C-alpha cells in the first residue's frame, strides 16, 4: 500500500549551515512514527517542512503521492508551545479548522464537539478561554483542534515538552487512546526517548546537525507498554546508546 507520507532525500540548510542531510522515510496508513534526536538537531525543522511552514532546498515531500504545496489542514500540527488562540473559547478553537473548510457554523460545531469528546478531560470546558486552563489542558485543546481538521497525518512537535512529568505520562496514555479511536497516522517529534518508545510503532533516530537518519527501530511491544519491562528498557537503552555515540 502507498504510504501516507513519503520524504525523499530532503536537504535543508540555513545559509551555510546544513540542517537536514538527505533525510528519507515513509509513514504508513495508521502508523505512529516517532522521530528522536538531540535537541536542536533539526527535528522541528523537518516537521515544519512537512507542515509546509518552511521551504527546503532539495528532495521531495509527498502526501498520498502528491507533492505538498504550502501549509494545509491535511497535515494538522500540534505545536510545541501553546498555540491555541487565547481570544477564542475552547469550542471556538476546535471549530476553527472545520470553519476554514467552508462548513457552516452548525456543522463546524458538531465536528468540534465530536473531537472534544475524543480528547479526554475537555468536556465541560467548551466555553472557557484558554487563560483559565492549565498547560496540559491547553495542549489537549490543541490536539482536539488539530484532530478537527481531520488530517491525513497528525504532526506533533514535542507536544508534551512543557508539561510536568505526571501530566506528561497521563497525556501519553490519552494520546494512545485517541490514536486507537481515530486510527490517525501520527508523526511525533520528541527528544524524549522513553516517550518515543512508549508511544510509537517505529522510532527513527536522527543524528546531530546535520540531521541524518542513523537508525530506525521497530517497537513490537504490545500496548499498553510497561516502562519497566526488560524489553522496553533494552530498546530504550539501544536508542540512547545510538544517540550517545553521535
Amino acid at each position, binding site marked *: 500500500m502507498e504510504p501516507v507520507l513519503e520524504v525523499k532525500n530532503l536537504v535543508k540548510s540555513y545559509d551555510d549551515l546544513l540542517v537536514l542531510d538527505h533525510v528519507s522515510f515513509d509513514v504508513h496508513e495508521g502508523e505512529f512514527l516517532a522521530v528522536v534526536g538531540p535537541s536542536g538537531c533539526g527535528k522541528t525543522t523537518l516537521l515544519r517542512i512537512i*507542515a*509546509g*511552514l518552511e521551504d527546503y532546498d532539495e528532495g521531495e515531500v509527498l502526501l498520498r503521492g502528491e507533492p505538498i504545496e*504550502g*501549509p*494545509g*489542514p491535511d*497535515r*494538522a*500540527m500540534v*505545536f510545541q*508551545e501553546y*498555540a*491555541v*488562540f*487565547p*481570544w*477564542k473559547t475552547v469550542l471556538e478553537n476546535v471549530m*476553527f*479548522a472545520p*470553519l*476554514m*473548510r467552508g462548513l457552516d457554523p452548525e456543522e463546524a460545531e458538531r465536528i468540534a464537539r465530536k473531537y472534544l469528546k475524543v480528547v479526554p478531560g475537555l468536556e465541560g470546558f467548551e466555553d472557557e*478561554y*484558554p*487563560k483559565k486552563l492549565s498547560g496540559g489542558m491547553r495542549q489537549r485543546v490543541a490536539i482536539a*483542534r*488539530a484532530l478537527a*481538521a481531520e488530517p491525513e497525518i497528525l504532526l506533533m512537535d514535542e507536544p508534551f515538552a512543557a508539561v510536568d512529568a505526571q501530566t506528561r505520562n497521563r497525556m501519553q496514555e490519552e494520546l494512545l487512546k485517541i490514536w486507537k479511536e481515530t486510527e490517525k497516522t501520527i508523526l511525533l517529534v520528541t527528544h524524549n526517548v522513553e516517550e518515543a518508545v512508549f508511544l510509537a510503532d517505529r522510532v527513527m533516530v536522527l543524528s546531530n546537525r546535520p540531521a541524518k537518519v542513523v537508525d530506525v527501530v521497530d517497537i513490537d511491544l504490545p500496548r499498553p507498554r510497561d516502562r519497566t519491562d526488560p524489553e522496553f528498557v533494552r530498546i530504550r537503552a539501544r536508542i540512547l546508546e545510538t544517540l550517545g555515540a553521535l
Partner: protein
Amino acid sequence: MERRSLALKVGTPVAVLIAWEVISRTGIISPVLLPPPSKVFAVFVEMPGQIAVNAATSLYRVAVGYSIAAVSGVTLGVLMGAYKDVETALDLLVEIIRPIPPIAWIPMAIVWFGIGDASAFFIIFIGAFFPILLSTRAGVKHVDRIYIEAALNLGADDKALIRHVLLPAALPEILTGLRTGLGVGWMCVVAAEMIAAKSGLGYMIIEAQRVLATDQVIAGMLTIGVLGLLMDRGFRALEKRLLAWM
C-alpha cells in the same frame, strides 16, 4: 483604605474649588478674570439648553469624524501591519503627514469645506486617524508568529487570517489606539469649532470670551472636560468587556 482613597480623590478637587471661590470672592483675583465656581455652576442652571445643544453638536461632529478615522485607520493599519509592500508604499507618506498638528489643517479645511460641520469632521478625522493607524499597525506586527502559523496550518486564507487571528490578537493595541484617537478627536473638535464653525462647545466658549463672559467660558471648558472623561471611562469599560479573554 477604601474610605481614605475616596476622601483623597474627592477631597482635592473640593479643596481646589473652595480655594478658588475664596480667591475670587475676596477679589485677590478679579472675578472677571476668574469668576468664582458658584457663578460658573450657575451658568449650567441659567442656560442648560444652550450648553446641551452645543455639546450635542460637538458630540455629533466627533461621532462622524471619529467613525471615519476609526474605520480607515484600522483598515489601513491592518494592511500596513500585514503586508510589507503596503507598509513600504505608505510609510514615508504617513511619516511626513503625521507630525503636522491637526490644528494646522484648519486653514485648508476652511478653504476646502467652508465654515461648518464638514471642516470639523475633517479636522477630527486628521487628529484621530494617526493614533489609530499607528497602534493598529504595531498591534498587527506584534502578533506572535505561532498563531499565524497555527491558523495557516489549519487552512486559513488571508481573509480568515486577518479576521480570526490578526484583528483579535491585535485588539488590545487597536483599542488603545481607538481610545487615544477618541481623546485627540475630542480636543480637535473644540479647536475646529473655535475657528471653522458657528456652533458647538468650542464656538460657545470663544463667543463668550468675546463678551468677557468668563463664567460661560469656564462652564464650557468644564463641559468639555467632563464629557471627555465620560467618553474615556465608557471606552475603558468597553475594552474590559472585549478583552475578557486576556
